[in-house]
């Protein structure tokens, strides 16, 4: 059962990554590759500050701000210097590699004894306390961690939901949806894109900060390939909820991320050949890309049957 709880925790932490990608990829329609760099940046900043003895919440918030700064740089490159969005992201991602090394001072920073958000959550339970549910049991500390993370993710998701219903949030969504229209309504799309990328990368860096605290070390290479998981989660989530409504998109991204980690856990649990791991994860992503179509067809089918008047 702790395997299940562990997968949920990991899925929830990485759902911040998915939410960040959702903002850039779906809401701003900006394919932002800064993500690989900013998740490691979040981790590096959080780890360094934790080692320096900062309060874990402050360190995590600082990591989030650092990510937002990275996103701002990408946004400025893309909108003010008119660099292609993909290229701007790659540039910043590449630069962040060195920045992260500078921040940590070395390429790997263990957090074995530092107080972190995770240890704060663990403090709610005794180290050997366990809960049993008929045949399963789980350390209470693990439950405390997953509860704390859920709370955090819930808070972030609700805040995002609220934000996207304000005048500013609406303008940001419109910037990604119809640039010409929102410009004609007096919004500077470049600024809006920059601000959105800051928000997106801030979320990603937050994921990095939590990940580092959960896994107990920061590694400069931890961001490699992360953006793919982000895309996969967003796409799985979209196909699950079958809607572009903002609230559903947010929940979908979180569910997609959790489901993705669960599938990986099941694959691992069933003891697949270690050499096939990458293939299986690629299959998941493939399924996520193909499923939306399949699910849409199924939905349509049912919709037609239940309300023949529609269409």
């Amino acid at each position, binding site marked *: 059962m702790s395997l299940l709880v562990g997968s949920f925790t990991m899925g929830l932490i990485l759902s911040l990554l998915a939410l960040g990608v959702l903002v850039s990829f779906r809401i701003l329609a900006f394919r932002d590759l800064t993500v690989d760099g900013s998740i490691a940046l979040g981790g590096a900043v959080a780890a360094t500050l934790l080692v320096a003895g900062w309060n874990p919440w402050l360190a995590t918030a600082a990591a989030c701000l650092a990510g937002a700064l990275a996103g701002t740089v990408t946004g400025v490159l893309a909108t003010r210097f008119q660099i292609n969005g993909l290229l701007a992201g790659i540039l910043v991602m590449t630069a962040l590699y060195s920045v992260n090394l500078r921040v940590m001072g070395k390429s790997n920073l263990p957090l074995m004894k530092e107080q972190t958000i995770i240890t704060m959550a663990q403090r709610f339970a005794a180290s050997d306390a366990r809960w049993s549910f008929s*045949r399963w049991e789980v350390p209470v500390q693990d439950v405390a961690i997953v509860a704390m993370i859920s709370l955090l993710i819930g808070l972030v998701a609700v805040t995002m939901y609220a934000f996207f219903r304000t005048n500013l949030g609406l303008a940001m969504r419109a910037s990604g949806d119809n640039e010409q229209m929102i410009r004609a309504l007096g919004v500077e799309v470049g600024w809006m894109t920059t601000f959105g990328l800051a928000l997106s990368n801030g979320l990603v860096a937050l994921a990095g900060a939590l990940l580092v605290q959960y896994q107990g070390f920061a*590694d400069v290479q931890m961001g490699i390939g992360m953006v793919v998981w982000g895309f996969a989660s967003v796409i799985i989530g979209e196909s699950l909820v*079958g809607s572009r409504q903002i609230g559903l998109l947010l929940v979908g991204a979180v569910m997609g991320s959790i489901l993705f980690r669960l599938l990986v856990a099941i694959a691992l649990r*069933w003891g697949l050949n270690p050499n096939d791991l990458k293939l299986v994860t690629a299959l998941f992503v493939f399924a996520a890309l193909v499923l939306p179509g399949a699910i849409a067809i199924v939905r349509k089918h049912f919709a037609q049957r239940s309300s023949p008047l529609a269409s």
Partner: protein
Amino acid sequence: MWDTLKRLSLGLALIVFASAILLLSDAPRRTSLTREPDHGAGPVPLAKVMKVALMQMASQPIIEEGADGVIAGLKEAGFAVGTAIQLKRFNAEGDLATVNAMAQELTGGGFDLVITLTTSALQAVANANQQRRVPHVFGLVTDPTQSGVGVGSEPLDHPAHMVGVGTLQPVAESLRMARQMNPKLTRVGVAWNPAEVNSEICTKLAREACRELKLDLLEATVENTAAVHEAVASLIARDVDLLWIGGDVSVLAAFEVVAKAAQNARIPVCTCIPGNAKKGSLFDVGANYFEVGRGIGHLAGRVLSGDEIAKLPVERSTPPKLMVNTLALKGLRDAWAVSAQVLAQADSVIDEQGQHDKALPATKASIAPVRTTNTDSAPLSKVWQLRLLAYINSPDVEEAEQGLRDGLKNAGVMEGRDFELKVANAQGDMTSLHGMVESALADHADLLLTISTQALQSAVQRARNTPIVFTMVANPFAAGVATTETEHLASVTGAYGSNDVDAMMPIIKQVLPNARRVGALYAPTEVNSVYSHELLVKAAKGASYELVSLGINSPSEAPDVTQSLCGQQIDLICLPNSNLAGSSFPTIVQSARKAKVPVFGFLGSMVSQGAVVVLTRDYHDMGADSGQIAARVMRGEKPAAIPLHQSRKNRLLINMAATKAAGLTIPGELLKRADRVVE
């Protein structure tokens, strides 16, 4: 609202479904596998059972030794655990917050006696016990008076509910012994961290002892482990005859640095903490913590049998333990000698016996205990579930895996009969690594075997109680699992080793006697590469080469960076290990060949790809060492008690074609030593 729920239903259903599958695959063994705790429950006693708590700060070997001693001492005093008393053990695992929480629990009633080991445990319990005054016996404390709990300097001057044993490091004895080994000794150097209370006490004692022995004590202070190198260098520059270390944790953490510096200056090192002789100190005089523990046990026995605590004295005793390393005598500047009397007195002696690698002194001694312990091949009491976790695929990883299997086999544990081994490889993806660990734990692994640093770190983070044996880790100290070979995380042990750059230097000298400038390429983003490079920097400095280093960040940079390196009048390239250098070696060697610069490397695969000389760490051998260690764990030893093992076995590989292409000749002597010569 209803529509929203409907839209979420598919996702929720899938998540519930996936969770159910996961739970079901997790369930079947759950019922059959409720493990008994290691201690506590024993035979049901007849008379009134006294409840005793034994609290320790962490899982360091010396504390474990002390705790074993306490239990032995209690038994000798008539209070055998399980019959006369019920003993509950507490271990804070180094976490101060936990110490305090435990102290609250211990003094909250329910225990007739609390025994604490180490100063922090004493302080925490004394603090929590101010009101309740539960009987309290303490030990493994350097100086109880200085710990601020109300114990005075007179034996009977202590609170009425509290008594214990103080154990000072035998500072004077160690200095006296040094004097005995070299009567001409006059200048002793000590590096210490003023922030450590214990270290301060030792240094004060050393000042007194030196005054008495008419020795000059030269001091250099450090703030942290990073500053040790400089401090020791300054002491050597001030021409000390001996480096002495008391109980300083910062300096001991960097013991290798001290030993290396001393070796270069051809002076010996001695310490007050047993165990460092294995790492190159001439001798260690320290407390025998098992004996200390026995004394504490005896004292606790008297309290349990009703003696009035206020009338019991606070004892201060140091049963000595001596460890001598005669190998360290070699090549010393001054005339140091270990008398037969000292040898007879010593609890353990390290000498040349069993050594098989002449190029590398002080090696076999540390290998010996690992390799010789368990030769019996009796079946184990249960079939262990072993899970091997690797981070990447590479020939070296495969060699290490084979080594692990061979090591287990040689130690007499059989696959199928004694253990089942399943292998998982994350193929370079860190998040999968995490899932692999989770999966192994859910699978009720009894022991995790890890290959590479990342695998180790992931395992350490998630596996709380499952022991871990690692291999193929260059630097477990930088990885955060250990501070010294003996002080490491309680459930973790294993074998490590990085490039033997020191051994490479003489080889370079033999092949290229006139070389002055050495070029190096390293990957600043890889922990191991940075560490290997640091070693190379030191070694090159020691061998008085000028080192020109360039960083390399991606395989595509390799040709350009190599060319620019070759353009700096270097005589050769020495490549410290990195994943990058490994994968882009063909382009590196090509660029180097154009510039007629020979390449020396540390990775086995490089020799066939055009390196002139390769001195590779034998990963099979390192794996085998870890396999042996794993077998010891399976036979019941606690990982905490097994020191980390540095693998030092090398294989020398030479490429004759590359040698000719570079216009070099390999001396016959070196050729003879080569394990493999590629034509």
